[in-house]
């Protein structure tokens, strides 16, 4: 009987957080997503050590091996100047993840701060912020990013800036919705009566209630940012060669279709793998926190 007592989880220990973790752990799809995301991050961090031909990430040219089909030496074949495509895809994850970190690092805090302020203060603050957010939401993001990208010189940092410029709106809207409903709760009123400052209420009372939606949305967004960045560089407006970006690799490979299919297929699989990873993880987190984004 003692062993039974140990395995059974007593109701005191079963906190909301623990339940969420149990839900996540028992969801194979979420675990698969987490594993895939970790593998992408791992590839990006240790690309120089994992890639079979790390020197091919740059401006290497080796015409002897150009356009070779997948083989034992080059698992994913080589591109038009003989660079190993597998190596470039692995380095491409680095570029994609840098973009994700840059864009979301800018957009999420800005959006969350505006959403919090609008939801908590109400009145004119709410009117101005929600109004501005709605206006920005109506701008086709790709068109704006193209325009910004054309104006600024084409570097990774500028691409981040161009994407982040419109990205914060989604987070602002989401956090606003949650913050507004939380701000009406009794414990917020209690904190106010106890003399807590606005800053304290915003950061310690309301923000923790928004963490779940923010983290789910951010994870799902990571996939979108990868897609978006790839689309920009496919059009020749994101990251400049020779930086190995998945989108520009597809654009390069496209010129040699349909004969040299590997030039498109493997970078495309790279995009697919990374976006699928973040989507599965995001869906898993959504089920775990049981939130709507």
């Amino acid at each position, binding site marked *: 009987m003692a062993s039974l007592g140990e395995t059974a989880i007593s109701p005191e220990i079963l906190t909301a957080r623990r339940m969420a973790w149990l839900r996540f752990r028992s969801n194979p799809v979420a675990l698969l997503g987490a594993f895939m995301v970790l593998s992408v991050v791992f590839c990006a961090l240790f690309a120089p050590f994992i890639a079979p031909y790390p020197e091919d990430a740059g401006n290497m040219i080796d015409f002897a091996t150009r356009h070779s089909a997948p083989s034992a030496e080059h698992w994913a074949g080589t591109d038009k100047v003989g660079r190993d495509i597998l190596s470039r895809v692995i380095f491409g994850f680095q570029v994609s993840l840098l973009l994700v970190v840059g864009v979301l690092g800018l957009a999420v805090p800005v959006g969350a701060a505006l959403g919090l302020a609008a939801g908590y203060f109400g009145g004119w603050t709410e009117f101005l912020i929600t*109004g*501005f957010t*709605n*206006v*920005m*939401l*109506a*701008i*086709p*993001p*790709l*068109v*704006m990013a*193209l*325009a*910004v*990208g*054309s*104006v600024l*010189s084409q570097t990774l940092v500028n691409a981040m800036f161009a994407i982040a410029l419109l990205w914060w709106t989604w987070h602002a809207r989401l956090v606003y919705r949650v913050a507004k409903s939380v701000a009406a709760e009794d414990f917020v009123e209690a904190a106010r009566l106890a003399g807590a400052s606005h800053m304290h209420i915003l950061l310690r009372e309301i923000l923790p209630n928004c963490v779940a939606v923010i983290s789910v949305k951010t994870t799902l967004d990571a*996939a*979108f940012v990868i*897609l*978006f960045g*790839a*689309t920009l560089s*496919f*059009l*020749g*407006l994101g990251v400049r060669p020779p930086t190995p970006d998945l*989108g520009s690799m*597809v654009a390069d490979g*496209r010129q040699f*279709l*349909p004969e040299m*299919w590997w030039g*498109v297929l493997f970078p*495309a699989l790279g*995009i*697919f793998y990374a*976006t*699928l990873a973040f*989507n599965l993880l995001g869906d898993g987190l959504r089920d775990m926190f049981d939130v709507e984004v």
Partner: protein
Amino acid sequence: MASGFVEFLIRRALGFIAVLLVLSMMIFALARVVPGDPARMAMGPAASAEQVQAMREQMGLDDPIVEQYVRFLRGAVQGDFGISLISGRPVTDEILRLLPATLELVIVTLLLMIVLGVPLGVLAARYRNGWADTLLRIVSMIGVTMPAFLVAILLQLFAAYYLSDWPLLGRIHQDFRSFEGPTGFYIVDGLLMGRLDIVGSALQHLAFPALALALAGIGQIMRLTRSAMIENLRRDHVQTLRSFGVPDRIVTFRYLFKLSSIAPLTIMGLEFASLIGNAFVVEMVFSWGGFASHGLESIMQNDLNAIMAVVMVSGLFFVVANLVIDILIGVIDPRIRLKEGH
């Protein structure tokens, strides 16, 4: 229609005008921080400093910035965006010439999204966990994991290998290139003039670009239709109908269908923004030669006036599409029409 709905529409329209105003300010501000002199660009590298200065004055580039903005806005309202810095022709003429190509593609895409997305969503709701549900999962997954340009390229690759006679590029068979109709829409013109061969060729060329553009939206519309159907199925009046023995088919298509088409319609408005963006990519892959390709070209060549016009026209598209959707929802759902605008 009730006055509440009219008031709601007016408020929406005012909001959309605000959208266009802010958009115009942003794109104008952006155009003024560009490195490089638009006058120099218009004149070419061979022009002398005096000639460039004369051009600067002609273009009003030395005027106060607010004055320049007001001039830009006044022109934009009248559909005048100045001349292209590259071709020297009025920007608006160029856009109007290319607009039908893009509109034809976008409208067919939207139809495809509705025609495929809504019924498949209904089927997925009726036969849960059946084949339609599986299809829904696959299409939604493609929608969130594959950028439109990849879908477009894969479709092209598929056609190249398995449909050797299928046209991969352009809007129409080259024998019909010289064909010109009153509207510029090949399908409409072909029908008007009774040229079914032209309609057929246009449709054949449209199929893959439209599918590539529509795929992401189809997944979303399917998912929304499905969840709306399931939610509405639980409603009292629907349950009452079923308990009276009204056949499932009639319940589904007479009573549930209309009710459940509101959610997907709402999302189409937002979807439209990414549709315009993706049109840039898909037009490029299929050498469509429309408004979006033109925009891309202008962006590549830093043709400022054309870029500003393309962004403004894209914004206008979005705004008009959303207004149309608002009206449609009001027509379908009397609760929104009769209620005070929210």
